[in-house]
């Protein structure tokens, strides 16, 4: 643990301890225990089956695809897959919880211990333990702002399959928490088990925060519920840690409680006190049989897993010579990794990475378009890199060509041809330009020759300018030195 991660309080340094419970919506056309549709953005109460509305006598039937998705996610987290797991009822009353209980998994979850690697900005990695992953139903949504007197209920989300992914309290600052969330999102997106869209609620985090004196026993934690962006998670942790330190340093004590993050004010607020704490009365759901798998079924799923970000990153470093940082930037989204691989194919891996991460991402972000819609395809960017590699254009000119490619949609070769931007490497032609420059500046030539070396840059600039930027810079340097020397 590095010193820099400590927060300095009035009584000295404090260490933050963070664990997270992430609710990730399973990518599935239908809900966990009913056939109702799960498409986002439907009219309220248009995707509700009799089961989701908990009509009398209705019974849940497990959606096998959701189970497979949970196992796939567990495998992606290098986790223990439990061949026997049990659904339990978590009992509480709320208007948007039609059954009066949520079907979840309590003592025997589908996935056990696993691990997730954080890619730190300095290129190192840090291991965060995964405690468990379990399947559960989402609740509906209460709408309190539609009428002054009544609340409305939308049951479209009721029964949607969620994976609750619980981490060990292994994170020590808000940056790590942010990286954890991003990495988890990357993994589920690679796996296709969750779309990771936090703004649509497909991923939400409950963040557990406590503080302690470095090396001391764990402090009492508070749980900040339902935070729905990486930035808010980080802000909430920063605020909450400082709040707890202040309470403790003032001689107070932290109550274990559930808090909400007020995104407008940037503060956390107590949601309910211990006295109101629920007794959820978990017990095995008698409507459902335990989930039982064969190891061979799990192995079959394992065999279909795609190359995951950690493996891809290692390959990019090892086989393509990338730095750990560049590699982690490229693998963060499967789409960019795939794009990069297409660009790098048969070309210099590092050069390709520089172009993808630098100019390409720069102009892509500026365009506001998706990679799919953006005018620059992998083939086009590859074509540009080829022109650099074979010295047709200089790196400097290539930047101009790239800007024109974005502007016109034409490929690099066409632009270079049309604009006559081909690099001049013909020494005769360059010598001719140098002669003209020297002839036009006899006084500068004399000064140089009398020892004013600094003027060399002036001659390079003049020559490049006179060549319209097309002269090969190396050739210009060499020839100038020779000619000026007389």
């Amino acid at each position, binding site marked *: 643990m590095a010193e820099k991660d400590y927060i300095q309080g009035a009584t000295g340094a404090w260490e933050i301890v963070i664990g997270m419970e992430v609710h990730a919506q399973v990518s599935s056309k239908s809900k966990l225990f009913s056939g109702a549709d799960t498409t986002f953005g439907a009219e309220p109460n248009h995707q509700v089956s009799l089961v989701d509305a908990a009509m*009398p006598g209705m019974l849940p*039937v497990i959606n096998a695809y959701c189970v497979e998705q949970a196992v796939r996610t567990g495998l992606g987290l290098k986790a223990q897959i439990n061949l026997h797991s049990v659904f339990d009822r978590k009992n509480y009353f709320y208007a948007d919880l039609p059954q009066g209980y949520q079907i979840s998994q309590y003592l025997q979850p589908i996935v056990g211990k696993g691990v997730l690697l954080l890619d730190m900005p300095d290129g190192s990695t840090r291991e965060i333990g995964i405690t468990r992953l379990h399947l559960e139903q989402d609740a509906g949504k209460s709408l309190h702002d539609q009428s002054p007197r009544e609340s409305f209920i939308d049951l479209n989300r009721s029964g949607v399959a969620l994976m609750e992914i619980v981490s060990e309290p292994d994170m020590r600052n808000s940056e790590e928490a942010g990286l954890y969330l991003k990495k988890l999102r990357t993994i589920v997106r690679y796996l296709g088990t969750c779309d990771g869209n936090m703004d649509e609620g497909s991923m939400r985090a409950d963040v557990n925060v406590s503080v302690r004196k470095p090396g001391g026993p764990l402090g009492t934690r508070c749980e900040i519920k339902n935070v729905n962006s990486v930035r808010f998670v980080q802000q909430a942790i920063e605020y909450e840690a400082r709040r707890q330190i202040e309470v403790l340093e003032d001689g107070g004590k932290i109550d274990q409680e559930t808090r909400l993050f007020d995104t407008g004010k940037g503060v956390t607020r107590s949601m309910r006190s211990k006295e109101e704490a629920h007794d959820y*009365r978990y017990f095995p759901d008698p409507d459902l049989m335990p989930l039982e798998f064969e190891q061979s079924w799990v192995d079959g799923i394992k065999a279909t897993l795609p190359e995951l970000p950690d493996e891809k990153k290692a390959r990019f470093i090892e086989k393509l010579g990338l730095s750990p940082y560049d590699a982690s930037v490229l693998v963060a989204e499967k789409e960019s990794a795939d794009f990069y691989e297409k660009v790098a194919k048969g070309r210099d891996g590092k050069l390709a990475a520089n172009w993808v991460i630098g100019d390409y991402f720069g102009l892509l972000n500026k365009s506001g378009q998706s990679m799919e819609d953006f005018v620059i395809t992998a083939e086009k960017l590859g074509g540009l890199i080829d022109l650099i590699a074979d010295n047709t254009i200089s790196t400097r000119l290539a930047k101009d060509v790239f800007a024109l490619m974005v502007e016109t949609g034409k490929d690099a070769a066409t632009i270079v041809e049309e604009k006559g931007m081909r690099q001049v490497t013909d020494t005769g032609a360059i010598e001719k330009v140098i002669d003209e420059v020297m002839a036009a500046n006899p006084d500068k030539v004399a000064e140089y020759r009398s020892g004013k070396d600094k003027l060399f840059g002036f001659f390079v600039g003049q020559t490049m300018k006179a060549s319209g930027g097309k002269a090969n810079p190396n050739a210009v340097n060499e020839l100038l030195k020779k000619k000026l020397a007389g």
Partner: protein
Amino acid sequence: MTVNPDSLTIASALDGLAKKDFTAVELTEACIKAMQAARPLNAVITETPDKALEMAKAADARRSKGEAGLLDGIPLAIKDLFATEGVLTTAASHILDGFKPAYESTATANLWKAGAVMLGKLNLDEFAMGSSNETSYYGPVVNPWRAKDGTKLVPGGSSGGSAAAVSAGFALGATGTDTGGSIRQPASLCGITGIKPTYGRVSRWGIVAFASSLDQAGPMTRTVRDSALMLQAMAGFDPKDSTSVDRPVPDYVANLEGGVKGMRIGIPREYRMDGMDAEITTLWEQGKQWLKEAGAEIVDINLPHTHYALATYYIVAPAEASSNLARYDGVRFGLRVPGKDLTEMYENTRGEGFGREVQRRIMIGTYVLSAGYYDAYYTKAQKVRTLIRKDFEQAFQRVDAILTPTAPNAAFPIGMKNDDPVTMYLNDVFTVPTSLAGLPGMSVPAGLNSEGLPLGLQLIGKPFEEAQLLRLGRSLEKVANYTAKPFHWWES
């Protein structure tokens, strides 16, 4: 011709329909008339005469085209715990006021598919919680059998309306549900036959849940053959019920007359309880004798954990019920009693909507699942339940079926046991162990006590051996030669 439904069974009515002695419409009209005449019994919550006649017409049409189903044209009545599409479904609770489901339970849908006709929805204990049909929001059901002095008696419960409807003769059969004895005990108290199949044999989909791990639907009829016919139609795998079992339904009627020669019948020592009604003991002895004479071998067996069954049941069933009944919250259907906020609306709705017995069980269930009490009650009850199941497994290595009394007493006066819930719970002492073990059990009427009231004997079978159990029941029925019927005092 005039049809007297009271003189018919399902089997004889099917004969009459086949021989064109009467039409389904004629039969149904006669049943509707008898149902209306029997209103003093309060056995029916919702009469559906129009629907019945419409279904009967369709049945006649099918029969004339030679497309009659297994139960085509047979008027049945349905315990009001089964959801019936477009027909008020109450579970005998105030909280389901006005609830007309948009769906039909699998069990009843199977009956309609076989051609049966629905006469109406039958009274029951509220949410099937009770042993006397006195907890119904719609008032108690009166047993067609009266005491000699004319005192009105309970029909048993929770399927009290079902037992009364069949016993009174206006329905040829009725559906029941059994969680701890709710088919068998009222069958015994009303002098009819009822079978609770193996857990998982009949789909629970569309039946208002009481205790999910115990609830099982079954037929209540006048004869064993009729139960076999109705179960044939009701049973089967249902992908909509995860606890339904995917195995073929055998022909329950084919071997019904196969007899009991060579069958080994177990007599559990532990069912001989202190203070048990001497007449019940005598009838049980008589049952043993009958089966022996019919060629069965009688074997004494032990079911050592029987003593704990009732206590176990009254932890497991309320625990599940407390959760199953959470959905009746006034938000989406049924009764809503407004309050100043959500919590108060819940309190008002559930306080007014649920009767005392239902509230009692919700409280017991909530308590036994609470933090700090869960292990002492719920976990321990589950362990005992396993031991009870093992008792039966061991016994069934030595015997083919088990003979016991169905209930510790005959029908008792309305109001007699209402003061003490535990006394009431004791009515299920012989039926609860079977339910906890998920085994099939049936009650067959075997005789009358000195008061002239019917008593039943219970037969317990191996899992999914309903065919064997029915065959055994048929043998018992034959030797017992029970023919008694209640005097139709309500018609005079």
